[in-house]
């Protein structure tokens, strides 16, 4: 049965991708891309990658779609007719695809427990991490403890992407009385639904943040979900209101503070006489030390991801307001 679900979902994914090629209406393309992300999240669940599915659903279907729609608002929604011939690209794609398919024939069969990929470090993570780190969720143990360096690097990349977007677009707003009302404040239903949904979304984000050690979730997902709540607020009540709730300047400081919090855990463990990000030094009992370390760095990740996602949305939103002024 599981194989059948997998077969059907993958076929649907292929059809969605195929449709994206031929559509000229970019709004439909972006919506199909949202569907594509949801489908791939389902496939990740069926492949046992629950944490990844969680991230893909909130990031791919949520934030990316919003950002792409924001871009479309600034650049127009239809693609112009392409006069170039598509024979050469098609040829390149077919040749590359054939080579890759030929390559897959040498790959070990799907799902076999003796595949080389399961032989190296994975058994150690699966057998030792519940004892060494003391968390049931191995993905969190590997992410935050064994591979804490990687995760620090990735958090820094996310932070630098925010710097890039802010340098390119900026979040300045024109403070004059003639700017039209932004947001959808006139819609009573939207307003009341948003008001009741937003607190629940934030509560859920906090749950995902602090329960990530035991179930699927963690700082990355929680940050994106919390940002989604504020994006909903900004869409319904308008950017000026959102700017009053969380100022763009404050967000920029939050993004940096998250990275600093993460790095300072590493420095603190060095000061205690250990290596960088060696959580065993944080408490007398190594397992308790691991717990403290993971909770704090996940919090740092969550804060940075939240602040970066929301700042990026602010940048696109305020750009749209400036361009679309009457």
């Amino acid at each position, binding site marked *: 049965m599981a194989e059948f679900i*997998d077969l059907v979902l*993958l*076929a649907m*994914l*292929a059809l969605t*991708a195929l449709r*994206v*090629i031929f559509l000229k209406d*970019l709004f439909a393309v972006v919506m199909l891309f949202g569907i*594509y992300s949801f489908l*791939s999240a389902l*496939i*990740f669940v069926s*492949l*046992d*990658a629950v*944490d*990844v599915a969680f991230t*893909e659903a909130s*990031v791919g279907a949520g*934030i*990316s779609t919003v*950002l*792409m729609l924001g*871009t479309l608002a600034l*650049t127009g929604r239809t*693609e*112009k007719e*392409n006069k170039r011939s598509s024979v050469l690209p*098609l040829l*390149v*794609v077919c040749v590359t*695809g054939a080579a*890759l398919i030929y390559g897959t*024939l040498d790959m070990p*069969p*799907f*799902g*076999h*427990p003796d595949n080389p990929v399961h032989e190296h470090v994975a058994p150690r993570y*699966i057998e030792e991490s519940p004892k060494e780190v003391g968390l*049931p*969720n*191995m*993905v969190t143990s*590997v992410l935050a403890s064994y*591979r804490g360096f990687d995760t620090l690097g*990735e958090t820094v*990349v*996310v932070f630098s992407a925010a710097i*890039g*977007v802010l340098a*390119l677009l900026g979040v300045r707003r024109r403070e004059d009385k003639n700017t039209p009302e932004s947001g959808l404040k006139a819609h009573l239903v939207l307003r009341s639904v948003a008001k009741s949904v937003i607190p629940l979304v934030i509560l859920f984000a906090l749950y995902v943040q602090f329960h990530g050690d035991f*179930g*699927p979730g963690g700082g*990355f997902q929680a940050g*994106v979900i919390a940002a989604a709540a504020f994006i909903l607020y900004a869409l319904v009540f308008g950017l000026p209101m959102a700017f009053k709730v969380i100022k763009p300047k404050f967000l920029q400081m939050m993004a940096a503070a998250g990275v600093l919090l993460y790095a300072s855990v590493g420095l603190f463990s060095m000061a205690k006489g250990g290596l960088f990000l060696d959580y065993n030094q944080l408490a007398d009992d190594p397992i308790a030390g691991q717990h403290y370390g993971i909770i704090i760095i996940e919090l740092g990740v969550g804060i940075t991801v939240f602040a970066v996602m929301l700042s*990026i949305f602010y940048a*696109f939103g305020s*750009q749209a307001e400036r361009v679309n002024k009457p």
Partner: protein
Amino acid sequence: MTFILEYYNYWIVVFLMMAGFYIVISANNLVKKIVGLNIFQTSVFMLYISMGKVGGGTAPIVVEGATQYSNPLPHVLILTAIVVGVATTAVGLSLIVRIKRAYGTVEENEFKNEDDAI
């Protein structure tokens, strides 16, 4: 039949990669190119997650009665890659917004002509 089932995941992944690749090299509109790039990216993620799957295993969260877990390492790498991916996508999209402001168009051939005219 088992042969097809054993490689079906990989073949679909290759198909998706090629669909994304085709969009990137043939589309004229920059937003569509970014969508293509994202399709390519997701298919790479799926390749890694497929390799981490253990038949009969369960998600890598300790539960009683589970005998086999899927490989947690690809999950970690891909989870962070997704968030980094959306951050870099945002940089790409903001570059597109700036191109629109500078040239008045996001169709590749149109601003290429304008560049050639200079």
